[in-house]
């Protein structure tokens, strides 16, 4: 996997609006992110054009002009902002692949669904947890088309003259910074797996097949 370096780019906020007030869209699910008709691929690439397909295109496949990713400058967004429980639903990693293929490298939301959160790291996408208030505050900068800068090593986000830090556990951070191949790393410990299997064959033999 490619190493995660600092990211600089446009941020697209996923909003639900009602008159003058807006809020971050909650429960953005993986069916929304990449509908099932695009899961028939046997590749990881090429899904970017179908990201948020049903929100992005009408029934005749014309762009829906009001959708954020169809507006300039957001069509080149590298950052996505959203509400609570982002990525809920299906385990489909196609959701992360579609994001990556579109160019999204950072997501900012208060909370994420577990499986999606994991899938992001495996694909070099950084999902940042921030409070609802901070996400909404950042969304106002995003709407103005201001460029966001994300410094993973320093765990900070900078936009205009505003700077905010974020939390992330050390292993996930290093995983992105180093672009680790986690299967390769686990295989370096294959002697430990051998030992586990030997012991398990004796202690828990009913699970052996």
């Amino acid at each position, binding site marked *: 996997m490619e190493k995660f370096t600092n990211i600089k780019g446009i941020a697209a906020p996923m909003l639900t609006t009602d008159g003058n007030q807006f809020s*971050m869209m909650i*429960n953005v*699910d993986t069916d929304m992110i990449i509908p099932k008709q695009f899961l028939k691929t046997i590749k990881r690439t090429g899904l970017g054009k179908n990201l948020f397909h049903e929100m992005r295109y009408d029934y005749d496949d014309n762009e829906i002009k009001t959708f954020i990713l169809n507006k300039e400058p957001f069509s080149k967004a590298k950052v996505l902002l959203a509400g609570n429980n982002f990525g809920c639903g299906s385990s489909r990693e196609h959701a992360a692949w579609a994001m990556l293929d579109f160019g999204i490298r950072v997501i900012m939301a208060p909370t994420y669904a577990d499986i999606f959160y994991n899938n992001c790291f495996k694909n070099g996408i950084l999902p940042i947890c921030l409070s609802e208030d901070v996400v909404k505050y950042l969304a106002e900068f995003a709407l103005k088309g201001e460029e966001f800068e994300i410094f993973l090593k320093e765990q900070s986000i900078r936009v205009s003259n505003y700077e905010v830090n974020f939390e992330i556990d050390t292993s996930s951070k290093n995983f992105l910074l180093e672009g680790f191949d986690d299967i390769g790393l686990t295989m370096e410990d294959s002697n430990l797996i051998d030992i586990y299997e030997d012991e398990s064959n004796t202690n828990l033999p009913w699970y052996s097949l």
Partner: protein
Amino acid sequence: MTQPKTIYDKIWESHLVYQGKDGSLIYIDRHLVHEVTSPQAFEGLRLSDRFVRQPKKTLAVADHNVPTEDRSKGIEDEESRIQVEALRQNCEDFGIEFIGMDDLRQGIVHIIGPEQGFTLPGSTIVCGDSHTSTHGAFGALAVGIGTSEVEHVLATQTLIQKKSKNFNVQIVGRCPEYITAKDLALSVIGAVGTAGGTGFVIEYSGNVVESLTMEGRMTLCNLTIEAGARAGLIAPDNKTYEYLQNRPMTPKGELWESALKYWKTLPSDKDVHYDKTITIDTKNLAPLVTWGTSPEDVIEIGGNIPIPEEIEDDSKKNAIKRSLEYMGLEAGAPIKGLKIDKVFIGSCTNGRIEDLRDAARILKDKKVSEHVDAMVVPGSGLVKAQAENEGLDKIFMESGFDWREPGCSMCLAMNADKLLPEERCASTSNRNFEGRQGRGGRTHLLSPKMAVAAAVMGHLADVRELDS
């Protein structure tokens, strides 16, 4: 004295290859594979010149893409056909058992695991599918994983995990008639919320959970992911053992006896501490349906659709408005009486034999409403055969239901079975997300009994009134 442990703690500890500060390596006893989330994992293995560490602990079946009508001509859709064929080829190349479309055992991955006795108490089970939580009904630690993790498990038979917290959901009281495991699950999701279980493993307990059949327990555990928890489990008991004994892949003879002894040590210790606990009293529970586009949008069949203006939180208020518009609903109106176009009985949530018996018992001698297109998709070939033995297929067909071949079908509409824009469906499946059953389609989740009531009445209806 040692610290009391939950069943989750015990399974976790017995599967630790090593414990790390941020992530631990746990051993995986059983890996289920299907055609949609595995091709890229096998491709990854090939590119890195890796092989499957334990092919015998891996079982594969095609379910998401398979047609539920005439299969004599194979799969018509080219992409679907390629994906299913890729799975067959990958299994052949890597030495994995593949249950093909023409095999009687073929079916939804979460239905065939328990059926074959692949699912065992105290084991760790993974599958590239979020509804893997189903297998927790047997007291297994079963989690859904992404494709990169599928590749990791194929190559190493292990998974890097962080330990979750323990969440006890107690379901107690006297459960009224017509309340099914589906209603219990929806009521849990309604109470916990779709993110309330995030970071937790849920253990279901209480007299109502104990009284559920294995099939009911599977329905309950299946929907755990809709409350945000990756795994849900129930302590094994005699029902669990009776269900599993003599299944094709369960241990036999002395090995079974020693397994049994071990499994009896699995239930959570007395006085164990849970990080979170809720109690649901079923005494006054009515059959439930969802009105919106999130599984937490649950109301009683006699209830009214929410009014956004009454909600304080802006993001929730806006989400409700969006859902109402998508679902074509009027705020404050009763949910009962809402006209439906389609009925779907099936899925890994409600596609087992008891679900079909439940539905057929209510349906017998009644007709599907003229404007309703209704279908039953058994969860597996064995469920289908059993239903046909019992004559359930005739009850369904004589009433006007389509009787189909097994698969995931209209639960996620990857095959030909889908809703058209603005079609409204009473569905026993697990997700009512926008577009889930077909673009623009409107899904109301409910139990098989309630699905039959909707089919017969032609609108969302109270099964208690229909059947009395």
